[in-house]
């Protein structure tokens, strides 16, 4: 790439940079995570601010800079404006964007992650149950990124799992009662129902999420479990998890 280039991307965040500029972090379809300077975005007449609003899917023309590239112009391909006016959906969108900002690598294309993020943001915007979307996203993102836990058999002895099992974060999967006996460390108990739900969400087609019916309490417990698992694998905290309920 030389001179100028175009990217299709989802805006993950946009933060202040100096007096008038902003720094936008995006997950692009072809170039992985990308940070771009948006010159003059803080000024009321800036057209660039509108094409770098978080959670929108955009196509941007980019100029090449010495340290950071910058936005020259662009258009909004899918505006998910509704997300920004629905508190609960907004809290969940933040959570998704933060997870993606940790999973995405600069300069490494990750189209499956890009499509997953876009699908989930659209689902949130379309009014699909927020908890369901976030759990679905975390499970699918774990799979796309290669650390989806082994849940169909004991990850240690390959034996059959009973109703109660132990999701061991360090082992990257569920342990049977026997194997879990002498294991210490991060993890949590996981029932057969929860393992089944995770398996179903790992397979379900996103378009069927709208008709998917699931108990909210179970989803909430799954969300906590899988967020803890994800934080362990990423070795960092997902700050926005604490805001999902607050913005509700």
């Amino acid at each position, binding site marked *: 790439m030389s001179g100028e280039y175009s990217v299709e991307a989802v805006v993950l965040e*946009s933060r202040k940079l*100096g007096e008038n500029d902003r720094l936008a972090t995006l997950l692009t379809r072809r170039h992985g995570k990308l940070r771009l300077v948006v010159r003059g975005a803080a000024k*009321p007449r800036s*057209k660039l*601010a*509108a094409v770098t609003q978080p959670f929108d899917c955009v196509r941007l023309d980019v100029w090449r800079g010495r340290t950071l590239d910058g936005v020259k112009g662009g*258009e*909004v391909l899918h505006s998910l404006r509704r997300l920004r*006016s629905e508190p609960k959906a907004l809290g969940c969108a*933040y959570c998704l964007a933060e997870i993606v900002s940790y999973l995405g690598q600069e300069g490494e294309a990750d189209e499956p992650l890009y499509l997953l993020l876009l699908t989930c943001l659209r689902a949130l915007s379309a009014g699909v149950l927020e908890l369901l979307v976030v759990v679905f996203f975390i499970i699918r993102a774990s799979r796309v990124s290669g650390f989806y836990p082994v849940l169909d058999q004991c990850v240690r002895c390959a034996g059959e799992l009973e109703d109660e099992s132990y999701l061991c974060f360090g082992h990257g999967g569920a342990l049977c009662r026997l194997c879990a006996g002498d294991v210490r460390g991060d993890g949590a108990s996981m029932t057969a129902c929860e393992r089944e739900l995770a398996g179903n969400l790992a397979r379900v087609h996103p378009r069927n999420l709208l008709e998917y019916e699931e108990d909210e309490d179970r989803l909430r417990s799954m969300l906590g479990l899988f967020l803890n698992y994800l934080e362990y694998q990423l070795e960092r905290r997902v700050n926005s998890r604490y805001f999902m309920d607050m913005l509700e």
Partner: protein
Amino acid sequence: MPAFFAPSMARLIEELSKLPGIGPKSAQRLALHLVKGAEEDVRSLAEALMDAKTTVQHCSICSNLTDSDPCEICGDGSRREDLVCVVEDPSDVVAMERTRDYDGLYHVLHGLISPMDGVGPDELRVKNLLDRLREDEVQEVILATDPTVEGEATAMYLARLLRPLGVKVTRIARGLPEGGDLDYADEATLSRALRGRYSVDSG
């Protein structure tokens, strides 16, 4: 970079480059300007910095930065005490005052809710606002946070929090800039302006 400078000069450059919007190059330029300048000017600057640091405090009512408590605005008896405008930081108070159209009081949050940075209401001056609304006779709260996602999230959170207190909660309007050309407006702003249209009869 500062390795080519005398240690005291390098330290000055390093300290200046910690300021917002000042990169290493600007810090170097400022440092060179300061050491080349008259000693009296540098002393005056140093005194102004220390003076501001020791005397500026938060107003106990609105949390704006002030030399005296309460601040000039909160202590001004001619202003409407039933109207409070909530803004992100002190520079927004200056911007609002420049309009000469607002005669109510302010409340400065000193930040916005930023979930990805872990900045929540506890890190902002939200509790002071609630205490103030419970004690004072405020009729309307204007949420004048930035029209960004963080600004909207903060406004939504505050609106939900203030509703049970029985005060009228309003949000500043969004749309086209004064003197702007419709041709050059972006889609999001134009769409906002359309949704916020008003009847010309009512002005």
